[in-house]
């Protein structure tokens, strides 16, 4: 069993959702994670907030992770999976994919002694 990070990528992190929309997304995300956890394949999850996000580049600190590139990371969860295919199946269920242009990235987590 390997561990994989499922990374939620938002095409446009500057779009502001209504609180009602947020609540629906939250619930969908929890259902998605709950379904993975029910298979004993959930390891950990980290949501990343857009408020007060900063980017440091060439000694400059700017607001927002966005700058010229609008795509940004909304959060990630770590799961256990037998293969990358299984991890991809988990990722396909993420509600983030319902948003226009959003995507999921699946990355195997390096073990302690592995170079990366």
């Amino acid at each position, binding site marked *: 069993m390997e561990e994989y990070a499922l990374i939620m990528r938002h095409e446009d992190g500057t779009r502001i959702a209504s609180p009602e929309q947020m609540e629906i997304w939250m619930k969908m995300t*929890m259902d998605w994670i*709950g379904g993975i956890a*029910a*298979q004993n394949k959930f390891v950990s999850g980290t949501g990343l907030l857009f408020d007060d996000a900063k980017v440091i580049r060439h000694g400059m600190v700017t607001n927002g992770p966005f700058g010229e590139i609008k795509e940004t990371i909304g959060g990630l969860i770590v799961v256990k999976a037998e293969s990358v295919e299984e991890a991809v199946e988990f990722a396909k269920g993420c509600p983030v994919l319902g948003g226009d242009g959003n995507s999921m990235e699946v990355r195997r987590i390096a073990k302690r002694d592995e170079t990366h």
Partner: protein
Amino acid sequence: MAQQELIPHLFRLEYRKIVSVLCRRFGFEQIEIAEDIASDTFATAAQTWGLNGAPANPAAWLYAVAKNKAKNHLQRNTVFETKVAPEVKHKTTELHKYEIDLSPQNITDSQLQMMFAICHPSIPPEAQIGLSLRILCGFGIDEIADAFLTNKETINKRLFRAKEKLREEHVKIEYPTPAEIDRRLENVLTTIYLLFNEGYYSVHKNEVLRKDLCFEAIRLGEMLIGNKTTDKPQVNALLSLMYFQASRFDARISKNGEIVLYDDQDTRLWNYDMITKGGYFLHRSATGGSLSKYHLEASIAYWSTRKEDTTEKWENILQLYNRYLQLEYSPIAALNRTYALAKARGRQEAIIEAEKLKLENNQFYFALLGELYTGIDTSRAKQHFKKAFSLAKTQADKQVLQNKMDML
């Protein structure tokens, strides 16, 4: 109270106090002596009260006798001078050396500290429960053997090894430091909850014993709450959970000893006083920044005290299980989540999720699948119930499954 009931009743209540106080005074080195003195005290009570009748204040009488026996022991025993005296924390004058402090405060402290000592991480969980039953709940060896469905020899050995371990590890009867308390408390709470479940879910026929286990667990929880350092949100949450669960005790077993499923329970048999208490402690648990699994379980248990089958109820239960599973996986939580999903979103969605669980050796997994397919695909439902039936271990479980198949 009649004489023959009075002594067992007092034993259950007072034995642990005497043992805890004496053991804290003597140290774990001499726990057997503390236990002997406590048992002796009750033997003396049985003899004396049998002849003269019970005294006006039986507890005070017991304390006085225990105190004398302990003092005699200390005075007689040279071990005290060489081994115990240097260990006794409060160096006192010659006169106080043999004093035994049975004040309410010392009794409470001793019992709580004993709880932490018994739930020391070096001892296996089964032994922790055994020792808790013996020392903190005043259970007899045969009662413990009964509760574990085993024999006295096994229990005696288990308790003996656990006590040896406590001595080897030099476990002290004291409060953990504030920095350590949450971690150590986790173990204590686990033991209390195991004790509760032993009573609530065991297949034991003896209903009185099973109830006793549940109530003893609740009592230990209340003891923690009665003390400022241990009155923590997660303790309140566990107590709330136990009250909510215990409120259905009378409704979940039929007169013939069969399990009555939640849907079929007669709500008039629910104990509303306990439900109220559960609510009270749930409310008290809602402080601080951390959410324990007991908070989630208590909240789920709260929703279970509301019989109406509303979407709101099942949606809430589903979300609570979603969070619970992230904290701790267990097959039963995974199955319960799937059941809640079926109730909140419909069976089709739940069947897809259920089939991902693949709990191939779990009778409840197949029972759930049977349930989900009931009314959708009768032959599949039957197939799953049959599989569950073949995996079921108790007669009560088999009966429930047979009824389900008959109703298809």
